[in-house]
């Protein structure tokens, strides 16, 4: 009896539709968020992440409506993010039905945002998303969809985020994202072993063994993927059976 490793599908949306692209570019339509959410809920997803990757002012009302409609489909936790810059933004997302709020760029620009969210909703509801890119022997934090460098080293930023009140780190490898060549195991292990809160690994998943590796070598607590689930390259049920038969504790829906 111990905590199960989580499999988390991610819906990147433009506010109303799920979109996908490689290295955050060349976006194309990948489906209806409400239909996908219902499918993943039934297939045994442990949680769902919905992001507004456009995060434009005029897409906000649509995105909040998407969260509401997605939340209605779920009896698993929902995390939402993209463009959350203030406590008010976070409140509207939580009121729409999200259990957790994901912040990224805004937290780099104003780290106190993490503390404000943590005080209001509790650490368990604050997910700090970090996009990391390898620079020689360490990883640098990137923002704006991985395009813009920051002065932060990824481990330092993750530790700082936890001190400020983040309850979970969503760690994306900018190098691996969209490549389907496997998670960045060294990055994931370095962050996961260096902090006291759970880490969700993201970027590069395709094969079942990628997930096995990231749970064992990468010490990840959860693993996130998008297009392989949307395109049905990988079913969550089959993936979990594979992980279980390889000794990884997972929740198989009964």
């Amino acid at each position, binding site marked *: 009896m111990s905590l199960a490793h989580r499999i988390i599908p991610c819906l990147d949306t433009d506010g109303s539709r799920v979109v996908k692209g490689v290295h955050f570019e060349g976006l194309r339509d990948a489906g209806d968020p409400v239909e996908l959410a219902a499918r993943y809920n039934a297939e045994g997803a442990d949680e769902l992440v919905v992001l507004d990757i456009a995060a434009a002012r005029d897409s906000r009302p649509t995105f909040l409506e998407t969260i509401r409609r997605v939340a209605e489909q779920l009896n698993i936790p929902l995390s939402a993010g993209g463009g959350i810059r203030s406590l008010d933004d976070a409140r509207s997302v939580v009121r729409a039905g999200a259990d957790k709020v994901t912040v990224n760029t805004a937290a780099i620009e104003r780290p106190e945002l993490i503390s404000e969210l943590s005080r209001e909703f509790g650490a*368990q509801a604050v997910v700090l998303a970090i996009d990391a890119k390898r620079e020689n022997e360490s990883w640098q934090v990137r923002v704006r969809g991985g395009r813009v460098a920051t002065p932060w080293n990824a481990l330092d930023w993750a530790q700082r985020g936890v001190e400020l009140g983040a*309850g979970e780190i969503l760690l994306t490898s900018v190098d691996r994202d969209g490549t389907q060549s496997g998670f960045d195991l060294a990055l994931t292990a370095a962050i996961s072993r260096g902090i006291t809160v759970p880490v969700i690994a993201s970027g590069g998943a395709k094969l079942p063994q990628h997930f096995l590796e990231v749970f064992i070598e990468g010490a990840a607590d959860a693993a996130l993927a998008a297009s392989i689930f949307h395109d049905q390259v990988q079913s969550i049920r089959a993936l979990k059976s594979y992980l279980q038969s390889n000794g990884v504790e997972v929740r198989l829906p*009964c």
Partner: protein
Amino acid sequence: MIVTLIDYGAGNVTSVAGALRRLGADVHTTDQPEELTTATCLILPGVGHCAALLRSLDAHGLRQPLLTAISRGTPFLGICLGLQALYKSSAEAPELTGLGLLHGNVDLLPQTVKLPHMGWNQVRPLRDCRLLRNIPCGAYFYFAHSYAAPAGSPATAATCEHGHEFTAILETERIFGVQFHPEKSGAPGTTLLDNFLRLAV
């Protein structure tokens, strides 16, 4: 069946209400003291910080009506912080007094494991647990917390382990509590809420 859901201004009220309505319950959310004393069945959901919950109960004048209703035997279910609030005190808010219906104090889980205890875990029934009826043995429930109630009390009906053993489900004759979130725990969570509704009739 009318379920009165205590809405103290924070927390997971919407999703708990949604889950109960899908089970056919007539859900009434309130922050009014007099509606607690006349309720036939009470649920206190909770998520976030323990101090926020206790302060808010007091700010709305809900503490005494809630204690009165529970002492009269109104069926009660506390979810997550709603369970923790039943104890005398919590290390998360040592300056505040809990509802004090159960002995023992809520404490931080050991820091030998990752906190928050976040995700799906199994529970171990210590006796015939009415809330777990018709739920397959070994089912997983969704937890998201760093503080937990001790496992040793006679009210503990099932435990879970993360760093150490803690109370996952408590049951007295009319007082029920779950540390996990049944409204987020898939089919087993739905069955558990249904069990509570049946017990509360």
